[in-house]
């Protein structure tokens, strides 16, 4: 039995799996690029302009500018998480794609690594589109906001790995609704996204900083897009990188445990 913390050996062939998913994505690019485009508009109009009419400023920052980085953070989370839960589950269970691929020189570790890289890539693509829309609204400061793009990759990898852990242990595709509704949806509300955590009792901030990855991602994005830097960024980034590495290792080992019997 593999230890879930043992370091997997990954070959560069993992990129073939990434290429496979990219090829499918590009074939249907119209349906794929439209949602993030619309989503950025909707969030900004409904929450930014709508609520912003009443809530003019938070900590001296216009409300629209305050939530803009949160919109990006949530996009990072959702695109990678849903890709590596429902998307990966369909490829694994219904399409039997993983079985087909591991009959070639690729190992299951390579396949999962490729899926995680793909999840992260999807986050980057969504963030780039949304960044474009938000820039048109004049709520992104440049050039610092450009750093959001590489960070979207790391954040995407984090959520892809988190998702893959659930995919590895889920008994069915329906059971994936639990982490989606009980973990991801609350996280998009309670991670300092639409209001600062400081207005809640301190325990909320501690829990969010300890357990909710989105808190760290939104905090860093906000520092970059406003911009408003603070030394706490070092802490946020360290947390993100450490948890990403840990989750990637666990996700690959759990998947191996599920599929190699």
């Amino acid at each position, binding site marked *: 039995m593999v230890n879930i913390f043992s370091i997997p050996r990954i070959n560069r062939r993992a990129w073939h799996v990434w*290429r496979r998913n990219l090829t499918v994505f590009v074939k249907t690019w119209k349906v794929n690029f439209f949602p993030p485009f619309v989503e950025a508009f909707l969030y900004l109009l409904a929450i930014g302009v709508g609520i912003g009419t009443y809530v003019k400023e938070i900590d001296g920052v216009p409300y629209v500018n305050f939530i803009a980085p949160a919109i990006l953070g949530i996009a990072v989370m959702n695109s990678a998480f849903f890709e590596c839960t429902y998307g990966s589950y369909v490829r694994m269970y219904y399409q039997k794609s993983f079985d087909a691929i591991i009959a070639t020189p*690729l190992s299951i570790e390579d396949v999962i690594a490729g899926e995680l890289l793909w999840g992260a890539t999807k986050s980057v693509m969504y963030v780039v589109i949304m960044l474009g829309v938000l820039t048109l609204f004049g709520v992104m400061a440049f050039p610092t906001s450009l750093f959001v793009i590489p960070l979207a990759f790391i954040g995407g990898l984090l959520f892809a790995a988190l998702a893959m852990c659930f995919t590895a242990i889920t008994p069915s595709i329906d059971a994936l609704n639990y982490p989606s509704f009980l973990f991801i949806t609350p996280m998009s509300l309670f991670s300092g996204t639409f209001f600062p955590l400081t207005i809640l009792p301190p325990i909320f901030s501690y829990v969010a900083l300890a357990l909710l990855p989105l808190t760290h991602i939104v905090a860093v994005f906000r520092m970059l897009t406003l911009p408003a830097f603070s030394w706490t960024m070092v802490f946020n980034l360290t947390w993100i990188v450490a948890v990403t590495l840990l989750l990637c290792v666990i996700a690959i080992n759990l998947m191996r445990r599920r599929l190699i019997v």
Partner: protein
Amino acid sequence: MDSNNYSNKRGTYIPPVILAEGLKKSYGNIAAVDNINFAVQKGEIFGFLGPNGAGKTTTMKMIQCISPRSAGGLRVFDLDPDEYPDIIKHRIGVVPQETNLDPDFTCEGNLLMYARYFDIPKDIAKDRVKELLTFVSLSEKHDVSIEKLSGGMKRRLILARALINKPELLILDEPTIGLDPQARHLIWERLKLLQSQGNTIVLTTHYLDEAARLCDRLVIMDNGKILEEGTPSSLVSKHAGGEIVEVEKNNDVLECIRGMNVPFEETGDTVLISASDAHEIARQLLEKCRPKKMLTRPATLEDVFLKLTGRRLRD
């Protein structure tokens, strides 16, 4: 024949393509494969015959390096699957029991994608895909999506996919399951052609005629164990005799046969007697008990199979 110790003319040892010694696979308490020994030599078609749940697929998966063995020895190309899975997988082609073509791609797309997994350069892959689609008679379907293919076309495409890396060893797990006679014959023909080009082929099946027609040697498996090994004809003559007499069953006939002191087997409404001189037995039966229906026929692999694995229904 001692198949484990082939030598060439100069007497140097040539290892078999696959060598299993005391090979075992357990899932919890179930021994799916229970201590089996076999050797597959270069250039032969080697069959695994057995009812559902015999352990055929499990054995194929261990050879393919996608399921680690629980105990015993296994070498493919004289390499250990646990240590060199990618080298072994580079040299084999697999037709899995379950059709797992990629529904997001066309026929051609499936093969091109597979070529990429084997690191085959694109221009070489394109030529090979064209050749292979012709080989399995699917050229006109090259840009058709997988959902629009019939079951037989899918199996043929999977065979083409298994050949994309020019494998030295081809592993086929029930290659013709659920196919019409035309498609089965096409696949058989192609496999014979591949063998004539020097490929080694391992296949599992529970179609007895398929095994008899294709295999140079085969093993009969049941409950994770190998019951018998040999050429199809040697197995038939060893276990089923030369011919079979089938007689309609009734009490008179049974009594009469018991009196004749020949081994027989009852199945449903028929009694089977295997004998080297079926006509003599038939003549005696006709004289003594006047059965309503009777026929004599040559023994087949099916008789051997049913004799060794029993007639109990499997899931």
